[in-house]
């Protein structure tokens, strides 16, 4: 190990490292956001109370079955394999060359969606039944109940798990180098391929990964605190203005 080599590699290749890190962040951030939205949507659909009869019942059952297959497939296969299947499969099936970055975001999103769907469902189930009943009792339908009462609370509850998923995505985007997406791992491999300093190059990459995951964790902690709001509240003084005078 030579510390000088690490310095030299950084000096010579920092734009490539930064571009790689930027790409990793972009793919994992967009993937996590879209994945969370997918998860929330599936969570809402899968908690629709199934009526006892009618066409709606059949439709919901079919929809739930499709969603189950989606979740089982993407949770049950490695992302590196999904990347190969989707990227080369789309080329074979539709004769189109997917944009690599778009393909990467697509793969991370639907993969995250499958995991988030279960996390969201757990989050919705953990909300007190009374919250649903109170919303229904004032005449809200399922979607109004979800949007105005349940999902805001669910979102707060699943935020730690979402952050966890984001951190996993930052690391796991490295498997996308198999479809030649220029994220951090791919860039590092190119750098090391040029200078044959594998250890030093990947040492730099590991530090960059660590900085990204650590920063994301801290930011999410801060967001969680902000969402909880202040512990104090002010009473409104009735019949007086801000100076305490009668009005």
């Amino acid at each position: 190990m030579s510390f000088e080599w690490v310095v030299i590699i950084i000096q010579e290749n920092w734009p490539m490292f930064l571009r790689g890190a930027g790409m990793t962040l972009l793919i994992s951030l967009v993937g996590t956001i879209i994945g969370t939205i997918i998860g929330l949507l599936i969570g809402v659909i899968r908690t629709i109370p199934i009526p006892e009869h009618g066409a709606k019942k059949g439709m919901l059952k079919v929809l739930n079955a499709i969603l189950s297959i989606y979740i089982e497939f993407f949770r049950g296969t490695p992302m590196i394999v999904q990347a190969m299947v989707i990227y080369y499969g789309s080329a074979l099936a539709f004769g189109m060359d997917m944009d690599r970055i778009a393909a990467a975001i697509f793969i991370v999103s639907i993969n995250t969606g499958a995991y988030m769907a279960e996390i969201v469902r757990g989050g919705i189930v953990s909300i007190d039944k009374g919250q649903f009943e109170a919303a229904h009792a004032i005449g809200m339908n399922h979607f109004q109940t979800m949007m105005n009462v349940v999902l805001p609370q669910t979102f707060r509850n699943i935020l730690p798990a979402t952050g966890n998923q984001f951190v996993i995505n930052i690391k796991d985007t490295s498997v996308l180098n198999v479809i030649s997406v220029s994220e951090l791992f791919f860039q590092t491999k190119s750098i090391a391929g040029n200078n044959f300093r594998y250890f030093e190059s990947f040492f730099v990459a590991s530090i960059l990964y660590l900085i990204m995951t650590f920063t994301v964790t801290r930011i999410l902690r801060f967001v969680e605190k902000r969402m909880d709001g202040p512990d104090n509240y002010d009473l409104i003084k009735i019949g007086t203005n801000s100076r305490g005078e009668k009005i």
Partner: protein
Amino acid sequence: MTTIIDIQHLSKSFGTHEVLKDINFSVKKGEVVCIIGSSGSGKSTLLRCVNLLEQPSGGAIIYHNENILDNNHDINAYRTKLGMVFQQFNLFNNHNVLNNCVVGQVKVLKRSKEEAEKIAKKYLKVVGMDQYVNAKPKQLSGGQKQRVAIARALSMEPDVMLFDEPTSALDPEMVDEVLKVMKQLAESGLTMLIVTHEMGFAKEVSDWVVFMDQGVIAEEGTPEQIFNNPTGERTRTFLKRTLKTN
């Protein structure tokens, strides 16, 4: 007096267990009806059947000459006409006090935000919680939460208010503040259907008392009849037992 809600031959089973059997009663405009009875007698289930939080197994609920249990009836529109107050308050945890009373008006009744806030503040004042508009539910005591829950239901300006044991989850000293608000509402002519264990309160405010036992209405009548001259054996036993413990 016009009948607002008429319950006919209502029944409810959970699996093979029959909780309510052939219930018939009605609530008239401006009337306060109290449902009393021991735990497990089906009185909460009955109240929850009235606004369809429980789906009745049979019978009819007639509201404005329409059977709510008909298949294609708009349940959500019907529910806006019934204000519900729960034993466990069930305030929306993600909203502050004011928004708890506003969100239903804006999203369900499609009122403007300004109008909804004005109405919400009016009813928060009625329950004495207008100072707390910015507080979150977790920052309030049980009695305060329940008063906000009452204001939330009133803000929808319903035809009938349903109370499901509104003081059962409260500390003794907080029971009074909630009962005081309810008495005030009763005096203002609001139609109320109340499930309660507070016998003194029931005797004082109600126009009609329904005594339930083992899933049926065992006796009903004016408070004088029920509390002073109950005819049924079960009513007498129940009252003797509860009045002794009170």
